[in-house]
């Protein structure tokens, strides 16, 4: 009982609330403009054109062109933002279960490349090494899984 009282004190509540608020505020500020921006790009047919420049990124995994933008957003901004685009695509039905899984796999290993890497460079890590190894790992693992997940039958059992 003493343990529970130690955890749930005023300090804990304020710490959690402040942390939560900062996180949600950051998400709000990025998600809203991002979705508006995406809608505008879609409307102007720019999305398809720009995505066309990055087909080399998704070809190794046999992913469709619609997978490119969520991947890019996740790579630059982070998993919450790439994830929200994936959730959106899942709702609209533009990506198959296989596509969704592979994009998720690539992103969870490799996202927020600029910000997260810089955080560690700031404390003394070699940024170049981090980026290269992280990309190799995500490419390798996603590619290996893509080879085995090619058959739809495999998906139904997972």
């Amino acid at each position: 009982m003493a343990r529970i009282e130690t955890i749930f004190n005023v300090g804990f509540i304020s710490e959690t609330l402040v942390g939560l608020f900062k996180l949600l505020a950051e998400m709000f500020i990025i998600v809203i403009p991002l979705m508006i921006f995406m809608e505008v790009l879609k409307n102007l047919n720019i999305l398809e054109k720009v995505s066309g420049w990055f087909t080399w990124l998704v070809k190794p995994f046999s992913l469709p062109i619609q997978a490119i933008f969520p991947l890019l957003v996740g790579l630059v901004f982070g998993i919450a933002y790439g994830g929200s685009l994936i959730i959106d695509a899942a709702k609209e039905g533009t990506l198959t279960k296989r596509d969704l899984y592979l994009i998720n796999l690539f992103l969870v290993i490799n996202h927020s490349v600029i910000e997260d890497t810089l955080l560690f460079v700031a404390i003394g890590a070699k940024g170049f090494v981090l980026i290269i190894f992280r990309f190799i790992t995500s490419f390798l693992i996603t590619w290996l899984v893509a080879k085995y997940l090619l058959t739809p039958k495999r998906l139904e059992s997972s």
Partner: protein
Amino acid sequence: MVTLVTIKKGFTKGLHTFWVLSKVIIPVYIMVTILSKTPVLGFVADLTKPIMNLVGLPGEAATAIVIGNLLNIYAAIGAMGAMDLNTKEITTIALMILISHSLFVETAISKKTGVNVTSLVLLRIFGSIIAGMALNWGWPE
């Protein structure tokens, strides 16, 4: 053509997405903060120490890596600040944490996209260990 309708559609989508993300992140965030006040982290760190040998890291690095996995990157960096590490060790820990971190929060987000998340977690942990081993082996001395 971009009209007010386009902006409104994007805004509505944004609100909906934000709401979906919040429903997922808020409970998990609270749970993780509670977790950080318990002895669980230290316990898991002790279990992880044997892996440190494989990746060429000192035993104490296990704490930072476990914190990165169960909490978040910032907490892990905080933990690393209290340790005496050389560039190779800092880079290796950084690489492993970058590949596998914030497992609770990020897995909850992935789950919302409708995929099987258990394999994602396992592949991340596996990937981070392999990457750490590769870096340990390939680091030019």
